[in-house]
């Protein structure tokens, strides 16, 4: 656009110079000459169409430059290495925390058995402690579901990036996008996993909602 304005200014200057050099020449005649030159340059195009054509050519150049820049960014590294590596790391977190949780539960079960043979109040105290540990261990289920949601999101990003590469880089076909998780309780009833704190109801809210049906 800036270049077009610059050219228009140059044209004005040249017209002014022509008028100064040939003061007798009517403006209409000069305009006719300029129009004839433009038509010669762009076939049957009017000056307005020629200007549009020029802008389209400029836009094409912008796209070519963007393509080169995207290629130089090596975005294929994101899909080839970085995202698969991130999902592997997340899978490893789930596996290791699951193993740790199993060990904790096993130890708790041993303590639970011991609790029944201890005199009171020690037995009750010990069982109370193991109850708290069992409750806390349910974190593994929640974090596993949350990590799975992150992995699914990463896979969608990976597919989107691959599509951008295929569109601009023109190398092969982009892989299909993974399906989005269902947003509502329909069909087989599979849901979205745990919601973030504040985004869903707690147990007392649920109790109130259920009570409203009675």
């Amino acid at each position, binding site marked *: 656009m800036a270049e077009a304005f610059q050219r228009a200014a140059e044209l004005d200057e040249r017209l002014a110079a022509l008028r100064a050099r040939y003061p007798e020449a009517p403006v209409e005649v000069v305009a006719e000459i300029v129009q004839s030159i433009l038509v010669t340059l762009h076939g049957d195009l009017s000056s307005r169409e020629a200007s549009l054509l020029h802008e389209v050519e400029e836009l094409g150049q912008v796209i070519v430059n963007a393509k080169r820049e995207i290629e130089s960014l090596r975005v294929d590294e994101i899909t080839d290495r970085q995202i698969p590596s991130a999902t592997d790391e997340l899978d490893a977190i789930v596996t290791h925390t*699951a193993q740790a*949780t*199993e060990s904790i*539960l096993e130890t*708790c*079960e041993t303590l*639970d058995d011991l609790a029944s043979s201890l005199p009171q109040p020690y037995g009750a105290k010990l*069982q109370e402690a*193991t*109850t708290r540990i*069992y*409750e806390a*261990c*349910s*974190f*593994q*289920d*929640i974090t*596993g*579901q949350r990590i799975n949601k992150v992995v699914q999101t990463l896979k969608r990003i990976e597919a989107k990036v691959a599509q951008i590469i295929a569109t601009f880089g023109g190398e092969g076909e982009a892989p299909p996008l993974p399906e989005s998780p269902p947003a*509502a*309780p329909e069909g*087989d*009833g*599979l*849901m*979205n*996993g*745990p*919601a973030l704190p504040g985004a*869903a*109801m*707690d*147990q007392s809210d*649920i109790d109130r*909602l*259920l009570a409203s*049906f009675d």
Partner: protein
Amino acid sequence: MAIDKSINILIVDDYKTMLRIIRNLLKQLDFNNVEEATDGAEALAKLRAGNFSLIISDWNMQPMSGLQLLQEVRADAKLKSIPFIMVTAESKAENVVAARQAGVSNYIVKPFNAETLKEKIEKVLGHG
């Protein structure tokens, strides 16, 4: 009248650690007759073959979800009166409403504590 602690309870969850946690919490509440299933289809087969007085089920499972299991149970003349507690991380109002419409007896949101589990069991077994 005290709750009969000898009843058969079926717990359903595709996550074995969660099954283990619920089983241990039930044991601490003196419920020792507990069977496990890892999805709705397996649960349904066990329910039809056995004699259960309580179902405690997760929602997110494949190939048959907890909601589908609930619908199957309520549509089965032999099983339809068994109390059904949904224990799930799904805590949006529409989930609770969908479960209620399908005939859920009570609904526990994960993570939960032993006291909540005890309270809901007592309630659905008619002692709450």
